[in-house]
């Protein structure tokens, strides 16, 4: 199916709240969370997308999280992306495992890395993180503690001897280690 045919089929078969647009040679369906399972079932049954590639999330800062799924049709050779937007305060979504069984591990990983809940998942245990790990590492506000613990070799100015900060460079212009919020310290 060409992207135009997919967009036409989605326009006819899905509620009007679902927005369709061409994306990188395939089609992106932007689905409200309430129509998530309907969108996945449509992609599987009506768009013939029988190959589940991946499910992941994007931390959109103030706008919450997007959950994105990539599925592919082996017969029709077309790609479909489905994306939904979740609020930051309550990121929950019904599990996709009823439609695509292969989503099971992807949802486990997305749950532990972003803290997004998948209702109805058979076994939402951590997949990659060790026992006792606290926090959701792929969130943008998760700071890499090693970068605050190790002294940044670039902190000194050229020609500066001793502890950084003793030379005449004003504090406002002084560079800190990259990707560590100013003044952040490990707990």
């Amino acid at each position, binding site marked *: 199916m060409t992207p135009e045919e997919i967009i036409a089929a989605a326009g006819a078969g899905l509620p009007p709240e679902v927005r369709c647009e061409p994306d990188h040679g395939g089609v992106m369906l932007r689905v409200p969370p309430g129509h998530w399972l309907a969108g996945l079932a449509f992609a599987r049954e009506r768009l013939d997308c029988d190959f589940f590639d991946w499910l992941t999330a994007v931390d959109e800062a103030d706008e919450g999280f997007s959950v994105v799924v990539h599925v592919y049709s082996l017969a029709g050779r077309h790609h479909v992306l489905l994306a939904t937007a979740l609020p930051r305060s309550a990121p929950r979504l019904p599990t996709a495992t009823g439609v695509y069984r292969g989503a099971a591990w992807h949802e486990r990983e997305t749950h532990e890395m972003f803290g997004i809940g998948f209702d109805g998942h058979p076994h939402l245990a951590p997949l990659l993180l060790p026992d006792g790990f606290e926090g959701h590492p792929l969130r943008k506000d998760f700071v890499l503690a090693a970068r605050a613990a*190790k002294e*940044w*070799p*670039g902190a*000194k*100015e*050229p*020609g*500066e*001897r001793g502890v950084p900060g003793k030379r005449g460079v004003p504090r406002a212009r002084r*560079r800190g*280690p990259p990707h560590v919020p100013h003044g952040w310290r490990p707990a």
Partner: protein
Amino acid sequence: MTAGTPADGLPARSRGVIALLEENCTVCMLCARECPDWCIYIESHQEPVPGAEYGGAGDRRRVRNVLDRFAIDFSLCMYCGICVEACPYDALFWSPEFSYAETDIAALTHEQGRLREWMWTVPPPPAHDQGQRPPRD
């Protein structure tokens, strides 16, 4: 198990170890700041330029940076080459030497003297490959 040079069958521009030509270094700190592994350790101080203590209008002393310590921790280094590319003064060079395993991990941090030793193993720059983009300068 000795050095690899293109004559020994290693490809041109093989990345084995990084060498420092201290004379070219102005302690601009760009390599240390750009290194993604934070594995370049630089310490320096300032000295007045001999013969230019009081230079011209304004009576301002000219100073230059003097390198006290330049070390690369090769236990962390990922051989990306960002330091070699970032250096504006061509003080860092690639050498194809790869046989420098150690029993003590602290010995994998090479100081100035050892980094200068690697300079003698830096091969002359190879000819451009066919179809390569012409050089910027």
